[in-house]
């Protein structure tokens, strides 16, 4: 065994038993990953940045407008980097693609997939992804993505091809639209809609349509049954979902998501409306088609439900959409019931001298003043928001290791009788609190 290890140039050999930890392998694997990151950044990342730079408004430095061709001079002159980054952060592109929008959601979604696989594995006495990326299977997701991209896309012969092609893209688009409505920190939201809760309901209403379109256009029996099941499930759980949020809207006195998050600066609504929070959480599980409500994808009954005919990256897109949707629902729970970004100040303050004088690092001086992302309150808000969202995601993932799948008739009776009843009880609680003058506009608290 020792000889084989040496013969393979010190590489680990695939075996059933996890190899013992060795510091040299660990360091080498980190170095390998760093090497590939540098290669990819140079060959893909920097050209992509150059392309983006043509579309953003460049800052004026020393009286002259910086051109995209000169943008990389910040590598030699760090004082130029700050205005460029600042100009980039004020663009809509940044908001949509990077920070409160798609980039953050995709990052959380990728983390969710990894955590889900590892956590479920620990629950089930396995190791989970282990070899890919060498450090605890950290690159498994990238490997899966590469595999999906390189696979052939097979379209059923009798499928309605345009709709079948559009469906995964529309699914991701709907999920991304949902993400864009979520405020992450004060002022940091892609679309700050006045009637934000209504906009959320409108976007959620698109998911069953996309699902049924994709299922029906595949022209196959198992996707059809899965699509109809998804339609039943989503529609019957949308009603308690909407009703359970009405209590919060009444107490907050506004429909704007930013306003609702600001209204619970001191006490989150889950303290007063626990019934609504529970109903909303169960509805999230059903809307996300997660165990115990994964009937539209019930493997042993209808193969993979409405995902059966998707192959290659079309399937990958649907999965991406599913996890974006998971992040969006968890974030919505955070905003509605857990107080969004509000929380005690944890982020350390910036020393005054850094803001005025900049940081001295040997010969280089970097000045930070006025950078929007480095605002202390905002960083603290993002930290709290992500902590709460990750906690909600954890509770969404947990039932998968504990519960079996329930049946469609049990699901419908749960949605129509029990959850709707409970959400009305929640509304009465909210009304009682409102008319007793305890909460709401002009209340005691």
């Amino acid at each position, binding site marked *: 065994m020792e000889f084989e290890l040496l013969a393979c140039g010190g590489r680990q050999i695939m075996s059933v038993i996890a190899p013992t930890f060795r510091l040299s392998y660990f360091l080498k694997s980190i170095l390998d990953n760093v090497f590939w990151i540098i290669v990819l950044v140079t060959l893909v990342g920097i050209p992509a940045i150059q392309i983006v730079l043509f579309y953003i408004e460049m800052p004026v430095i020393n009286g002259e407008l910086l051109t995209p061709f000169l943008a990389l001079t910040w590598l030699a002159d760090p004082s130029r980097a700050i205005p460029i980054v600042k100009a980039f952060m004020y663009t809509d592109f940044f908001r949509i693609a990077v920070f409160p929008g798609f980039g953050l959601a995709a990052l959380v979604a990728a983390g969710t997939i990894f955590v889900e696989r590892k956590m479920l594995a620990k629950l089930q006495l396995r190791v989970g992804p282990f070899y890919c990326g060498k450090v605890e299977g950290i690159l498994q997701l990238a490997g899966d993505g590469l595999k999906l991209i390189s696979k052939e896309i097979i379209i059923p012969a009798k499928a309605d091809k345009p709709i079948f092609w559009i469906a995964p893209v529309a699914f991701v688009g709907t999920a991304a639209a949902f993400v864009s409505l979520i405020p992450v920190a004060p002022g940091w939201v892609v679309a700050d809609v006045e009637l934000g809760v209504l906009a959320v309901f409108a976007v959620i209403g698109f998911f069953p349509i996309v699902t049924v379109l994709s299922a029906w256009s595949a022209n196959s029996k198992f996707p059809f*049954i899965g699509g109809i099941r998804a339609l039943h499930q989503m529609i019957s759980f949308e009603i308690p979902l909407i009703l359970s949020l009405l209590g919060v809207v009444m107490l907050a006195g506004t429909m704007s998501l930013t306003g609702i998050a600001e209204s619970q600066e001191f006490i989150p609504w889950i303290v007063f409306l626990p019934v609504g929070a529970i109903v909303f959480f169960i509805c999230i599980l059903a809307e996300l088609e997660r*165990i115990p409500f994964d009937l539209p994808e019930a*493997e*042993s009954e209808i193969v993979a439900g409405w995902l059966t005919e998707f192959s290659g990256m079309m399937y990958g897109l649907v999965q991406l959409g599913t996890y974006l949707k998971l992040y969006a629902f968890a974030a919505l729970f955070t905003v509605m019931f857990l107080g969004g970004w509000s929380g005690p100040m944890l982020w350390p303050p910036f020393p005054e001298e850094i803001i005025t004088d900049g940081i001295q690092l040997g010969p280089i001086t970097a000045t930070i003043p006025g950078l929007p992302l480095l605002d202390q309150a905002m960083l603290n808000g993002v930290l709290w928001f992500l902590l709460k969202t990750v906690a909600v995601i954890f509770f969404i993932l947990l039932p998968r290791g504990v519960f079996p*799948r329930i*049946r*469609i008739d*049990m699901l419908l009776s749960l949605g129509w009788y029990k959850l709707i009843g409970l959400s009305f009880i929640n509304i009465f609680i909210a009304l009682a609190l409102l008319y007793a003058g305890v909460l709401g506009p002009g209340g005691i608290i």
Partner: protein
Amino acid sequence: MTMSAQLPPGLQLEKVDERIMTLNVGPQHPGSGHMRIIVQIDGDYIVACDPDPGYVHRGEEKMAEYRNYITNIPHLERPVIHDSCNILYPYVLGAEELLGIEVPERAKYVRVIAAELNRCVYTLYWLAIYGIFLGHSTMFMWPSGDRELFIDLLEKLTGARVTHAYFIPGGVRNDMPANFEDVCLRQVRYFEKRIAEYSDIFYDNPILISRTANTGVLSRNDAIRLGTTGSVLRASGVDYDVRKKEPYDVYDSLDFETNVLKSGDSYARSKVPWLDMMESCRIIRDALSKMPKSGSVRTKLKPNPKGGDTSVYKRVESGRGALGCHIVSRKKPEPYRVKLSVGSFRNLIAMPYLLKGEKLGNMPSVYWSLNYWPVEADR
């Protein structure tokens, strides 16, 4: 219409009724096993169900006619490779009677221990698949992992993880290793602790109970009338176990109970094998204590032994129910005919009756709770 008329019954494309859709569940379906179930559904209700086994028919019985009594052993266990001791048991008992061989007392105990270990291996595998059929992935992983305990023990005993080919006419192939008793007791003690945890996550799970209780109910009379065996029969309230009713080898001297549940639904059918595993642990412990500590485990045979001009029928209790083997001998080194009567096929007969009128979501739980192994049914 003309084209679809030429197709076999399950593949017909024309609609029988506007409301009824025909589903082909299997053989390329994650919830079917090596078989096809033609299901006709009206909305979510199953109108008719037609199980169609035979995709893995390998002619084991015919092949047995060309091999002598010893060379038959490794291939007669192929139908259920993870219950290979039990499927060989009736053949070996029958061959011993035909060839007139006496079995040493110690070998009988070793056989019982190996058979009970193998029953646990099979039942855990079956339970793992039952778990994943209901969407419970933890219940897939836990039994799959605990199965390794018994597989390791059997590897220690026989030299192979599956397909042991351990039982032979005249005893067993080799004696136990020196420390087997200690290791076996330790593993069994650990397993009994583990198996109690299954009830926490699976059998006492409210969703599981509400999902499988009162589905696919097989009444006591129907269970007898349809000829079901094993756990399906015992879940319907019939106290029938071949180990108790027609004890073979040393089962009459061992201390164990049969588990009988009254309700006859999917939940009871899934619970009886779990309770049986606990009894298996009891049997193993009892057999280890009562076993003669030394002695031969094998009576040597003459080369190419020949049977008389008779036939013999032997039955044992396998993981799936009563398993019979009918051997006809015509004074030749090869058996004239070997017929395996397997529990899987008998239990499958009940499936169309149970699934009629059920919801489509109950199909996996009812189907797999019948304790049916497609490869064994096809032989």
